[in-house]
């Protein structure tokens, strides 16, 4: 029963699009109603399934899912000739990422009620995007995974180019082409993995049981890792994200930063590191070097920007850098921290972009030097933004702190010199994060208010609901990190086992 429901997760958004086809595009009320209902339905569904996974604990799972601890395992042959199957399933990590996606999609639908242009197409695109993201976080077959992974960049382009603001054509193209470039790297290595694996299967579980040849891993791992890292905006492939976010409509920024950028990090963990642990051990210390830009310089760049979305984009870049620090630590605590950061940052940046979007709808500017003192007029949205800021700078009580402390402690367990230095730098740069966040909040919300903002109105019920739900998620993880950590630990255990079993790497042998 639950397995059937699980498969509905990615189907419901797609069905919603189909249901909406006969609805005339002028009847926006009905359209919004249908899409909101569908978003809420999926949210409820994923919520229930997450609870189900939690209740199951570490009970035995389907044997063909081994070594992963997958629930809701489904395996249906799809393209027999190429051994492609429809394999889906979820462990704790997937489940939380799905829950994150469901929340962000739901919130994204709610904040887009006033979007200008053809609303029918816009909401349909959001649902398509949701389908693709759900698919990525569910599929355990590499081809299926890649199909879903590719779908998302296309939807993203259409939404930015059609509904964005500012230099939307440039931003949209930059985003899509860069992501496509990353995908091409992934595709090349996927084929390599299939043929080198020699088990005639695209299944992640089957492939993880073999050790890929070292010569192959040595070039395939960096290619694949960087391919995934493009969408998680790891330096030097981060350049798409500020322009992309800045020109995207609110809901798309939320989905892109909140969910889509996690797909890359998830891919790094689930595919690249899980299937090629030997090469991961060799290459990851060098990846850490790239993080100096993300984690240490990212906040400084945010400091020099005045556009709210650019600030948030660079904040995302630095937070996502921490995910890679956790991954590169190659310790259970570090991997857990990285997974926690994926989830935590999703809610956090969702809240960030949601409040920014709401404020932008009112002030019609995103330039913080043009604003000031508007806290008085829009206390609810202001508090929402400040909470997002505090969660972003790692205030205890919010999820960011839990994730960051795991990452720092985990990364410090890695004795490698480069990792040590970068970890120390990363810990020290929590100050810089505080500087740009407080500077932004103070310029925008505090101080003297220009007269033109006298007529601002605070959020309506719909907007307040979005903020409350996202804040609740941040608090839930931040105050009670125990249960989520336990579930994540279970899902990370097989990955870490594979990494720790990886033989001492011999290059060229």
């Amino acid at each position, binding site marked *: 029963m639950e397995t059937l429901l699980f498969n509905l997760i990615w189907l419901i958004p797609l069905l919603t699009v189909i249901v909406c086809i006969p609805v005339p595009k002028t009847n926006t009320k009905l359209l919004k109603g249908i899409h909101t209902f569908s978003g809420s339905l999926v949210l409820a569904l994923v919520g229930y399934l997450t609870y189900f996974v939690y209740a199951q604990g570490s009970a035995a799972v389907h044997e063909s899912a081994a070594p992963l601890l997958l629930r809701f395992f489904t395996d249906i042959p799809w393209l027999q000739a190429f051994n492609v199957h429809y394999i889906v399933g979820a462990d704790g990590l997937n489940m939380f990422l799905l829950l994150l996606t469901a929340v962000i999609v739901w919130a994204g639908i709610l904040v887009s009620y006033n979007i200008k242009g053809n609303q029918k197409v816009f909401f349909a695109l959001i649902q398509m995007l949701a389908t693709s993201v759900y698919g990525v976080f569910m599929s355990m077959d590499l081809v299926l995974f890649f199909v879903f992974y590719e779908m998302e960049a296309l939807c993203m382009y259409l939404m930015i180019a059609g509904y964005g603001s500012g230099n939307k054509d440039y931003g949209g193209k930059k985003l899509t082409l860069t992501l496509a470039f990353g995908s091409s790297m992934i595709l090349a290595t996927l084929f390599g993995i299939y043929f080198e694996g020699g088990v005639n299967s695209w299944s992640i579980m089957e492939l993880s049981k073999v050790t890929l040849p070292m010569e192959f891993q040595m070039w395939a791992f960096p290619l694949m890792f960087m391919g995934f890292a493009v969408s998680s905006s790891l330096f030097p492939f981060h350049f798409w994200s500020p322009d992309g976010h800045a020109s995207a409509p609110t809901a798309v920024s939320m989905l892109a930063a909140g969910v889509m950028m996690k797909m890359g990090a998830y891919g790094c963990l689930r595919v690249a590191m899980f299937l090629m642990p030997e090469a991961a051990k060799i290459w990851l210390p060098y990846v850490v070097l790239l993080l100096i*830009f993300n984690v240490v310089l990212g906040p400084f760049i945010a400091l020099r920007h005045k556009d709210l979305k650019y600030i948030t984009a660079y904040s995302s870049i630095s937070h996502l850098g921490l995910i890679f620090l956790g991954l590169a630590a190659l310790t259970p605590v570090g991997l857990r921290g990285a997974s926690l950061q994926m989830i935590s940052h999703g809610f956090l940046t969702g809240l960030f972009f949601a409040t920014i979007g709401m404020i932008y709808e009112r002030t019609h500017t995103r330039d913080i030097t043009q604003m000031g003192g508007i806290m008085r007029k829009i206390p609810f949205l202001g508090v929402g933004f400040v909470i997002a800021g505090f969660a972003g700078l790692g205030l205890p009580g919010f999820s960011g*702190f839990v994730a960051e402390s795991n990452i720092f402690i985990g990364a410090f367990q890695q004795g490698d010199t480069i990792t040590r230095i970068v970890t120390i730098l990363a810990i*020290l740069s*929590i100050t810089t994060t505080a500087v740009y966040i407080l500077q932004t909040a*103070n310029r925008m919300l505090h101080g*003297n208010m220009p007269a033109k903002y006298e007529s601002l109105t605070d959020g309506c019920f719909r907007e307040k609901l979005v903020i409350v739900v996202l804040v609740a998620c941040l608090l839930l993880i931040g105050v009670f990190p*125990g249960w989520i950590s336990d579930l994540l630990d279970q899902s990370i255990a097989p990955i870490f086992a594979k990494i720790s079993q990886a033989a001492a790497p011999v290059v060229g042998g």
Partner: protein
Amino acid sequence: MTNDVSISYLIFLMPLLTFVVNGLFLGKRSAKGAATFAILCNGVAFAAALFLAVGYFTSGFAPQKAVAFEMPFLKFAEGFVANIGLLVDPLSIMMLVVVTFIAFMVNIYSVGYMRGDRAEGRFFALLSLFSFSMLGLVAATNLFQMFIFWELVGVSSYLLIGFWYHKPSAVSASKQAFILTRFADSFFLLGIVLVSYVAQSFDFFNLNGLTLGAFADQTINLGVMEVSKATALTIGAVLIFTGGWGKSAMFPMHIWLPNAMEGPTPVSSIIHSATMVVAGVYLVARLFPFFAICGNTLTLIMWVGAFTMVFAAVIACTQKDIKRILAYSTLSQLGYMMFALGTCKIGDAVFTTGWTASTFHIFTHAFFKCSLFLIAGSLIHQVHTNDLDAMGGLRKKMPITYVCALISVLAISGIPPFSGFFSKDEIILSAFQGHHYAVFGLAVLTSGLTTFYMFRLFFLAFHGKPRSESVAAGHVHEDFAMTLPIAILAVPALLSGLLAGGLFEHYFVPGKLMVPQLLQLQEAHWIPYVAVGVAVVSLLIAWVLYASPKANINRALDDVNRSSIYKTIYHKFYFDEMYYCVVRQFVIGGIAKVARFIQDYIVEGIVAFVVWFFHALGRLVRTAQSGHLTFYLGTLIVGVILWRFIGHLPF
């Protein structure tokens, strides 16, 4: 522990409840309701803390340590868990009582002080958030918990300093306070990560029980160098102390505290004098045995404290803003507490006079300094300015306040039998016993300076003729809600030294068995006479300058026609400007500019180049497909000829 620990939950839950209820529901609807609720809850918390304290000290269990309750927060590995709990020992119990008591008083006071403010409800909510965080901090059983609440007090401090967020000065002060303490906290966090990695524990019990010997022959890679784990622990100890350095606003990270006076006065009173800024001292006191084994960390702590003590006292002598005078006085007193902790080591031997003295001074200082701030708030509320220029002659109009102020001023000056005398005397004694004669001299000197600037403030505010029209016209009265807590606080300011001294001498020793070696030190009975003598002389100087019939008040308040030394001191040695310059020029104008340059020109430049390259490539290939048949044909012929020709080349 004979009494039930369940009552200790109340201490934490009550302020939290107040925060949630006032913040979400009550605050916006009824300011009066919010205030009543806050006072009620904080009263209950205080009663619970007192109950716990009485139970603990009468049970015969004291001064042993116990963990009243503990729950896991985050598990990093087997046996490496970050817990949230309540540590029960004399130090934490004392702090719980002090914090809940001060919070109770300040909540009552705020009813008067914040009356009519637009956001009274929010004020009471935030105040309770602060008390909750502070209580969590002092109850910490481990470094991780301490860091959690450490950050939470930081953020409540930020929110309360910037409470009047329409005032640009308040906003920038709050930002400065948060960022500067956050800067220190980043080192604190690094220290926690490093120490917990080496010791595999966050727990105070385990850290205080460490011996360096076990770590001497293992090494750890710190990135830039390979050091032994023992050295790493010492580095970690200094890093952890850096957290306290910033939080207690020790030089040179002191500038945020005087600027934080932009916040409402009740906030300055509870957060920036009595409780939060003591957190740094508390941290060192809590981890004292750990610091004691870590090389010369204690010496560093001593000098940081001692320098801040003198430095701040000198500045306090010239200021005119009464809250800033008190802020510098707080800095100076924190310096006393900090250096007292650092004096406790002679060679490898550790003695505990300084530790006892320091915790004792935390206790007495909380009362008289809180009282002084509340009094300052009362004055400001009546005169509508912080400036001594507009005060004077308030003695007749505010008699109760006057008497309470006298008590507190005498207490901070260290005149017997007021509370400050006992604790300060112990501190000076500890410097002497530790053979730190230079610091001893500075402490005695600062004791004189303290008396001088406090009586300067006192005389200029209360004595003489009124210097503002509103005071002269008699528009000044004492508000009941504000005077009540002042009057109550005068009692412990007067008596706490006399009554609690025995308690501290008996129970306040830092994990007696864990300190490597205990010394029996001789008392030096002449020290109190010297200290009191210096204080009395300073008092007389202050009287001659500011209150005697011949005193020239205009000259005293003049800050323009002064020598350059006086001006330098008056401008706080230009530290604000230095900070501003460093942050503007070096951080924002330097590093951030370079980072943005890398992004905007190098990274984006390469991206643009790649785009241009493919466009150019495309153009090049496009020219080949021009549609001219002759061109195609020509190319074909040339190609065939070349192909044949190349086939015959010798290579």
